[in-house]
Each structure stands twice: as structure tokens, then as C-alpha cells.
């Protein structure tokens, strides 16, 4: 059921968003030369389409939600099956992964590539269920070194150097 509620909530967000952005587009400067095809013409056309589609999705999901509830009230196995029930999705794992990714981004910005990547990979491989401890230990450092070599020596592409003392540290390597 939460799937339908999430779907309905997202459609409402899109509907409200389309109305809000309509007013933003309406406030754009006008140019007499372009009359009916001014800066707001195309965005407004798309926002109307998004609003209408959001209404359609809303209607569909409310109907499905009602059908699902009716089936539940009749104490029967619902014909409308929710995708999430079978997917084996682990929200805590996802949140951990998302937090780690954002943390990696921040670390890249402040500490540069080498420290951030080695730390990110070390944490990431340690929190995932994988048995070979020696590979978990070596892999983050080997992979960091390989990527750094590939980017700096082979491809001559820039890598983040971080700020302050980290910047000075990274200058030793690339």
C-alpha cells in the first residue's frame, strides 16, 4: 500500500511543482518581437502537460489504492501485487550507502582524491557482507592507487586535491 501512497505523494508534488513553476515562467521578461513564442511559451506548455499527467497518475493510483483496500477488506489475497514486497529492498542499507556517497563527495572536496577514496572504499567494503578479510583490507588502497595512476599518468585528467594541508599533501603525488 505504501507504494501507492508514495506514488500519489509524488504525483501531488509534481502537480504543485508544475503550478509553482508556471508562475515562475509567467514572471519571465517579455519581448514584443517574439510575441506568442516568448521565453515562457515552451516551459508553460510543458508545465501544463506535466500537470495533466500528474492528475492522470493521481487518478490511476487512487483507483488502484481503492481496489487494493477493497480486496483487503474482503480478506482475500490481493490481485494487485506491490512491487516492493518481492524486491528484497533494504532501506537501511540504502540509507547507509547514500550517506556514505554524500560523505565521499564532501571528503573529496576537502581532503582530495587519495584520502577520500581510500577511506570511502575501506568503509564501504567493511560494511558489506563479504568474507575475504584480506581482500577487504588491500582492495581500497590498490584500487585508489590504480585509479590515481590511470587518471594522472595515463589519461592526464585532473583529480580533486582538497584544501589546506590536504592540498599540500596531494601535491606530492599529483
Amino acid at each position, binding site marked *: 500500500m505504501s507504494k501507492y501512497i508514495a506514488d500519489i505523494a509524488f504525483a501531488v508534488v509534481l502537480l504543485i511543482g508544475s503550478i509553482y513553476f508556471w508562475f*515562475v515562467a509567467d514572471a519571465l521578461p517579455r519581448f514584443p518581437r517574439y510575441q506568442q513564442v516568448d521565453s515562457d511559451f515552451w516551459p508553460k506548455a510543458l508545465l501544463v502537460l506535466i500537470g495533466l*499527467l500528474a492528475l492522470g*497518475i493521481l487518478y490511476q493510483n487512487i483507483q488502484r489504492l481503492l481496489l487494493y483496500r477493497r480486496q483487503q477488506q474482503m480478506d482475500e489475497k490481493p490481485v494487485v501485487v506491490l512491487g*516492493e514486497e518481492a524486491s528484497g529492498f533494504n532501506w537501511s*542499507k*540504502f540509507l547507509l550507502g547514500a550517506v556514505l556517497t554524500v560523505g565521499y563527495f564532501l571528503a*573529496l572536496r576537502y581532503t582530495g582524491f587519495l584520502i577520500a577514496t581510500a577511506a570511502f572504499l575501506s568503509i564501504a567494503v567493511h560494511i558489506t557482507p563479504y568474507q575475504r578479510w584480506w581482500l577487504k583490507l588491500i582492495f581500497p588502497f590498490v584500487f585508489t592507487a590504480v585509479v590515481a595512476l590511470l*587518471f594522472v599518468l595515463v589519461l592526464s585528467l585532473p583529480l580533486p586535491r582538497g584544501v589546506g594541508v590536504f592540498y599540500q599533501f596531494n601535491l606530492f603525488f599529483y
Partner: protein
Amino acid sequence: MIDGFVSALSYMVSNPLSFLLIVFGMIWGIAFGSMPGLTGVVAVALLIPFTFVFGPIEGLLLLGAVYVGATFGGSIAAILFNTPGSPEAACTSLDGYPLAKQGHAGKALGMALASSALGGIFGTIVLAMLAPPLARVALTFGPPEYFALAVLGITAIASIGTTSVFKALMSGALGLAIATIGMDPLTGTGRFTFDVSMLLTGVSFIPAIIGMFALAEVLTRLSETRPLGEKITAVSTTLPKLKEFLALKWTLLRSAGIGTAIGTLPGVGATTAAFISYSEAVRWSKTPERFGKGAYEGIAAPEAANNGAVGGSMVPLLALGIPGSATTAIMIGGLTIHGIVPGPMLLVENKELVYSVFIGMLAANLLMIFFGLKAARYFAKILDAPYALVGPSIIVLCMTGVYALRNNIMDLVVMLVFGALGFILRRLDYPIAPLIIGLVLGPIAEISLRRAMLMNDFDIVAVVSRPITATLLILAFASLLYGLYGQFRRNAELKKQALTTSG
């Protein structure tokens, strides 16, 4: 045409790096294709920042080879693990896995390999024959025709092969809307920038697609438990004997033809091609009862079709500048890095590049036979690689690749935002491909429509009633009706089922 081939071939021969990149791209593609959850789209998206280092020809050769390799790669996991590495290989598992369980895994892989190569070569030949004349026709196109083409691109991908037309259309519309962020191409007014100077140039396309496809995919995959089927080990690929292969000649030719034709339609990709040619193979077979139990035709048909669709999907990209699939939409990013605008002028201004792509794709398909034969067992081992190591490594490549593009940390913010959006859309069953195609086609659709309106004194009827424009718009409308009809039929069946259950 011949002079184009000769000049492209001489360029490639004088730059051996081209061939090395084809080999690398194909191996990279097979590796990604063979791993469930890592599709060809992710493989291409991840490599785009690296193409910046090379010239446009080398860059496109690399991406083309990845596309070819990834389409075949999906069949390895489908045959050995009953888990398709990519959606287009889903059909292959229907007969491939039963064959593997009967002890014919090597031969099943060999059939998939030979059929993929044949389909791929067929598709590339059609691409080489069709793209130049189509581009010549497209040179006569004006803004109204380009607007109609963009509309057809969006509606086709939103209507065919999706479970919810509304959601797919919404996804496409969101892509078109996101593409309006930044400076208005006609008036120069900043739109939806909210005084953020970074947004004036619009949403950076490559960080957006890497976030949406690669980052969102990896985070989703890391959080899921996907059980693999019973694993078939000790595999050595054996090509089918010529006699066995010739026995399937009609199935192969029909499927390669279907795949290529379907691939040329904007938005309809390899997966649809594989399913249609599989059902056609069943329909034409003298022994349809063998399908699903281990028929070699059941491998040959989808594999020839999905690889044929690769060449087909490159036709609208190279001739019209309209992506035929999500992967080709991403390839547009690879071209724009080098300041190249895909479209009919490409064959006039960058003949060498286009013909190099034809040669590169042919070479990739031929090389695939060699690598597939020698290395399928090693590619199968990729599935042993723990996602605990692979997933975080891909996140590192996403971050560093996007950063390296413009040496700009803000591009990473764009990637993270689009990664989050991609995740939400995925969880709510919104297809991602229409959004990416919308993002690519948005500027084309907008500027074409507005220019067409200006040229015709704001008379919309005059714009849409031009013969080619009207035909394309009718096709767009028909594809939409087809998609809606399919959805209503599914909903009606669901309701009927519910009523029968509740008595």
C-alpha cells in the same frame, strides 16, 4: 560512400589506438553486460568522461564498441545463471538456461555469440547503407520537421514497451522541462536559474546521466538481494558447426532484420526487438513445442535481433541527431564534449567520423567472436566478483569521471541530485530512458517549434500541416494510442481478475 570508407579506414590504420580502443570498449562492454544490474547504458555513461582525452573519432569508436559488447554480454549471465545481465537478454535465458542445465552451456554460448555477431554485422551494414541517404533527406528538413521528429522520439519511447504510458510520458516531459533550465536560446533570458550562475548554462548533461543511470543503479543494487539461479560452471564456448548455423539461416536473417528495423525506430530498443523476434521464431518454427525447453533457435532469434538493433538505433542518431535508444542518447553527450552536433550535417562535415563508426562497429562484432570464444569463461567469472567491491568502485569512477570533465566540484552536486531523482523515479516505476531522451531532445524540440512558429507568423496549423511534419506527428499520435491501448487492456485484465477472485 566508398571514398568515405577509404578515408576513415586510412585514418584508423594510421591511428592504431583506434583498434585498441575498440578492443578495450568491447571487453568493457561484455564485462558490464554480463553483470546483472550493470547494463550497457551504465558502461557507456561511465566511459564518457574518458573520451575527453581522445579525439572524437576514437571516443565514438570506444563508445560504439562498448554498446556492441554490452548487448552480447547480457547473454552470458542469462545462459549460465538464468539471470539476464541486461534486459535485452531476458529472452535468451528462456532457452539458454535449459540448454546449459542439459550440459550444453558451451554450445549455447557459442550460438549466442555467433548470432549476436551476425545480427550486429547485419545491423551495421544496414546502418552504413541507410544513414547517408536518410541524412541527405534530412538536410531538406526545416524546424517544423525537427520538432515533429523530437515529438515522435519522446512518444515512441514513452509508449512502446512500458508498463505505464502516463509515467513514461511524465518522465519524458520532466526531461524536456529540465532542459529548459538555463539561458533561453532565442531571447537569452535566464530561466529557472534562481540567481545560481552555474545554472545559466543549463543542467550539465553528462553528470546528470551518470547520476541517473550509474549512481542510482549502483545504490539500488547495493541495497537489494538478488538471488542468482543455479550456477553452471566449467564452460568452454563452442561455436556451432556451419551446418547447424545454416539450419537456422532464416531465423537468423528474419531476427536480424526485425532487430535492425525496430532499432531504427526512435525509442524502441533492443529489448522489444528480442521479444518480437523470439515470438516470431516460435510462430515460424516447425517444432514450436521445443521452445522454452532448450531450442537453439530460442537463442539465435533474440541475440541476432538485439545486436541488430544496436546498428539500427545508430541510424537516427547519425542521420537525424535523434537518439534511437537511451544508450545512443548518452552517446550524444560523448559527441557534444568534442563540440560535435549529431545530425545530417555530420555526414557532410565529419564524414571520417561517421564512416569510422561503421568500420569500428563491424570490427567490434568480428572481434567479439574471437574474445567471446576465448574469454567467455573469464567473463562468467565476473559474476563471482562481489558487488561489495564492484559497487563502491563504480561510485568512485562516477565521482572522479564527472569531476575530471570540467575540473568542477559542482558537477558532482548535479550528479548527486540526479542520482537521487533517478532513485526516486526507479522506486516509483518511472522509466529513466524517456527522461534522458527528453533532456537531449528538449532544446531541439523547443528551438525548432519556436522558429517554425516565427517563420509561419505564429500559425500553428501551417506548422503542423507540412507533409513530413504531419506524417511524423500522426506516427507520434499513433504510437501514443498504441501504448494507451496496451495499458487499458492490461488494466481491464487486472480488474477482471480482481472481480473473478472476489466472486
